[in-house]
């Protein structure tokens, strides 16, 4: 077994394909749409329209940037509330025009800043979770790098969640976890094992539905395979009614931590 922390490092690697690479590598004719219609346009999240095998999709991705300058502009893919609100606006638009939604998620988490807090980071994520749960169009989320806690989940309440073999999905960063447990960030590797954050763990826990092979680093082959998989997924989802979709999505998330106990009522 590969140590979990090696996978954490791979997921964070600067050489990894970013969200925009996935959009452009898999889809055709990407047209980016901007802004949350409330306050700003957050460059940490990109979204818009794109084509795949003759069908129009709404595509949304967190974007880390390719060089220092663009990484700073993209805030290293740590979104502000405006990013989540833009994503939700585009999803609602997809619902209106009956388009499927595909999200590519790669973020260390929602941004920890003063403005982000003052403009309701928690509220923005909470609203996405609630609305995505009831979105009347098919949604697919693919974790392509870092899946950092609530900031990642806010784009991953989907009918199916896929995960690249070197991606991670975690409730807290291994460094912070190590800091809480042992008052040092030195033991992050141990914390990474305990958190069960690899694709294999997430699959075993049922948190993701499919692990995507990275084809030994052959990016073009990976994109081609993903394009075929996404098109197949949509064929399967296309004819479902809105009620069937939301029922199945609710059931997908409802099962985590459900227990076989019967309702027990006790007087207090």
């Amino acid at each position, binding site marked *: 077994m590969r140590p979990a922390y090696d996978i954490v490092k791979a997921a964070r690697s600067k050489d990894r394909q970013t969200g925009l690479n996935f959009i452009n590598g898999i889809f055709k004719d990407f047209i980016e749409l901007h802004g949350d219609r409330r306050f700003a346009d957050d460059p940490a999240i990109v979204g818009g329209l794109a084509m795949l095998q003759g069908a129009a999709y709404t595509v949304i991705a967190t974007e880390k940037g390719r060089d220092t300058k663009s990484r700073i502009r993209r805030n290293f893919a740590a979104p502000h509330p405006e990013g989540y609100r833009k994503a939700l606006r585009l999803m609602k638009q997809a619902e209106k025009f009956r388009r499927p939604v595909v999200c590519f998620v790669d973020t260390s988490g*929602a941004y*920890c*800043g*003063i403005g*982000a*807090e*003052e*403009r*309701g*980071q*928690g*509220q923005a*994520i*909470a*609203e996405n*979770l*609630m*609305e995505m*749960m*009831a979105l009347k169009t098919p949604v697919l989320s693919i974790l392509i790098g870092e899946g950092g*806690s*609530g900031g990642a*989940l*806010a784009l991953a*309440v989907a009918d199916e969640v896929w995960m690249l073999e070197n991606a991670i*999905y*975690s*409730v*807290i960063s291994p460094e912070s*976890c190590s800091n*809480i*447990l042992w008052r040092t960030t030195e033991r992050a590797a*141990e914390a990474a094992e*305990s*958190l*069960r*954050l690899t694709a294999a*763990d*997430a699959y075993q*826990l049922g*948190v993701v539905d499919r692990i995507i092979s990275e084809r030994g680093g052959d990016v073009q082959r990976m994109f081609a395979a993903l394009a075929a998989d996404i098109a197949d997924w949509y064929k399967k989802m296309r004819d479902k009614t809105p009620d069937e979709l939301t029922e199945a*999505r*609710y059931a997908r*998330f*409802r099962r*985590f*931590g*459900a*227990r076989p*106990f019967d*309702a*027990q*009522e*006790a*007087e*207090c």
Partner: protein
Amino acid sequence: MGLELFFRKPKNELEKGGRGRPRNAEMEYELTVACPACGYETPQSALIENLHVCRCGHCFRMSARERLMYLTDRGTFTELWGDMESEDILGFPGYPDKLESMRITSREKEAVICGTARIGGCACALFIMEPYFMMGSMGTVVGEKITRLFEYATERELPVLGVTVSGGARMQEGTLSLMQMAKTSGAVKRHSDRGLLYIVLLTDPTTGGVTASFAMQGDIILAEPGATVCFTGARIIEQTVRKKLPPNFQKAETMLQHGFIDMIVPRAEQWRVISKLLMMHRRKEAQG
């Protein structure tokens, strides 16, 4: 034999505990609690009587059962799923011991209590989070109980009152804790789509994954004076932005200014305000 003992009168002073028993000793030496806001030391009994609020208005932390006492009509609370306990699903270091010690110190089985009650005569479903159990962190049991409560309330067309206090998603249950944010949000949405009322009362501190899910999804969001409500804690933000934080950052009063909560309600007013709100949302068929 038992009865005889019960009726037997003490024969001498020593049996009563002695002539010299200091009668009001506890009163004279009663513990006081210092207020972190104003420094005033309130005797413990006075503090309990005043709902754990200092004379300056500072709200001390309060256990879920104590809140139940002043928030609900006497004798109307019926607990639901009170037996559910967490397990160490992932084999996380130190988690079983942590759970065990929390059960002993908090005298609760988990970090939330759920049930039904009447408030000002109006029936509702309610959940109250427990600060003394791992700071109200949300693992699979907390998520499951809250989800069940919303499903229960949806089925019976009851409004929900939720009192939040939480350090966020529970790290020890990994991504399964994270999934509870989506799960509870789905249940809140279904309740909401049926036209039912959900009132949230935010108390100090409400943070992380709980702020980013059901704490911010109420139709009406109330908060206790001075409560910290945030997604990321102030210390982490200070480390990230390397700037001094503005005064009253993430306090309920600031959240009110920024438009994220409806009103700040002191403890002594909460029962009255909540019962009015419930009354105003009573459904036609239930009125009268």
